């Protein structure tokens, strides 16, 4: 269900916690599963539950509680733009508008070719570098003026 490489990484996470607390690795395990599969399908969640000896429902609760887990397929590049107030004072909303216009989609939509998904995000703890975006949850991009946004989109194959 998950690759050997992913399972090894999950095992490394499990080792961080006391032996009887495997469940503590669930956030990392879901993140790793999502990185491998692109999103968290019900069978992926069930697999993680079995692997960690947890009830499926408990894993599902975690997957739905935290915003960065994707419970439905997303584009190859998921771009999350922070529009919270501090960013909005320095172009956060302008950056989101520019992206919407460039990609021809609104928040929570995916381009027809399946390449880009756009999301609205909350404070990423980088407000001094506004506008701020996250690419596929793990890569932060700062000072996203129109030229920088163009560069980012060009980098996405």
């Amino acid at each position, binding site marked *: 269900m998950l690759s050997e490489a992913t399972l090894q990484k999950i095992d490394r996470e499990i080792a*961080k*916690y*006391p032996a009887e*607390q495997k*469940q*503590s*690795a*669930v*956030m*990392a395990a*879901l*993140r790793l599963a999502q990185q491998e599969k692109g999103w968290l399908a019900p069978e992926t969640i069930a697999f993680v539950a079995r692997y*960690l000896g*947890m009830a499926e429902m*408990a894993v599902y*609760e*975690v997957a739905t*509680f*935290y*915003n*960065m*887990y994707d419970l439905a397929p997303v584009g190859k590049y998921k771009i999350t733009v922070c*529009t*919270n*107030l*501090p*960013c*909005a*004072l*320095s*172009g956060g*909303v*302008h*950056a989101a508008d520019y992206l919407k216009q460039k990609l021809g989609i609104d928040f929570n939509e995916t381009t027809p070719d399946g390449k880009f998904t756009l999301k609205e*995000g*909350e*404070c*990423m*703890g*980088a*407000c*001094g*570098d*506004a*506008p701020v975006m*996250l690419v596929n*949850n*793990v*890569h*932060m991009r*700062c*000072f996203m*003026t*129109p030229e920088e946004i163009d560069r980012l989109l060009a980098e996405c194959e």
Partner: protein
Amino acid sequence: MAILDSINPTLTAGWHRPDVRDLARDTGWRLKDYEARGGYQALKKLFAEKMTPEQVIAEVKTSVLRGRGGAGFPTGLKWSFMPKNAAGEKYIVCNTDEGEPGTFKDRDIMRLDPHAVIEGMIIAGYAMGAQRGYNYIHGEIFELYQRFEEALEEARAAGYLGRNILGSGFDFELFAHHGWGAYICGEETALLESIEGKKGQPRYKPPFPANVGLYGCPTTINNTESLASIPYIIRHGGQAFLDLGKPNNGGTKLFSVSGHVNKPGNYEVPLGTPFAKLLEMAGGMRGGRKLKAVIPGGSSAPVLPADIIMDCTLDYDSIAKAGSMLGSGAVIVMDETVCMVKALERLSWFYYEESCGQCTPCREGTGWLYKMIHRIEHGQGRAEDLDLLDDVAKNIMGRTICALGDAAALPVISFVKHFRDEFAYHIEHKRCLVPPEVQRAGSTFHTRLMAGATC
């Protein structure tokens, strides 16, 4: 030069950021660089001088280091609450779940000085007799979570972590745990639930974490900046740290300045520094426009109008006296182009979105607040809405499990209090006092690079 600018740098001394965009080009965060600027000397001194745990806690008390995560609770006092002779495991947890809008200081600490956090946590473990620690890192800075794991590897290889650290007989293990997009996990008991692999829903207190914390064991949770301040205190003494700031407000502190200044960024200044000085360091008001209001301690702190904040100094007592909170030290600067209703609308949406839903006043109240502010902003406000806003907000306060309820209510109460005329104008005229095109132009793209800053 440390970050952008600083006065009496202690935390940021020796930091290097050659390229603001490219993490890969950061220099100076690795172990050898940290050691070269005096890193791990505090730990060595503590063992060489055979300081007792009680002596360590006494130094931290003397320093009057107050928690940098928001509440400003004295760190030394918090440490003294940990049970002394309890059997079984105890834990030290670092809170790097920095998600309070406006706050971005812990990210720079993690980026440029991760070993300071590690050293602070080891010393905390020694002082409280804990042998395991976790650093809970905001999911959005995943790249720095990976960097922290590398720093941990370096520390283990050098014998700063693990068994019998530097031959002292003290054992300490430290691990990183990442969040994945939930503001509420910054609340310390939600954070513990999250490490335990559950939804991040805050716990009832009491019992407090010092008695029943992670996995039911005694636990102390501190903010990243609090812990990163510890090595200085042990190396130079609590009194030296206290003397950097002002009485009852020890030390220097990182202030995250965002919004309508020329050079948004982090600035390290002594507590007690005039607000006007910080504003000047941040390049002054953007475009020379007029200051309208400042949120001085992260989005949860009450807003202060220009004339009040310009008379404040940056310390816990002065800001509290002015009716707000120093909080996390996140200074959100707004000029005259800002519509206060719209600003509050965005913040209220945030709290509504991030409420964990356990308590009815918070779950329902944050939704009501947002809906009312939304309708006022969109020309559908009613005359009775202003009193109703105040009433709903005050009915959330003090009636919830955690402080997110208060955090959602305080901005509403303070915005309406200080800018009541602007809210009333919206209701009466069904439009903003500040024309929309002025608002939009005032908040267009701006970075400190555009203002000529190099880092």
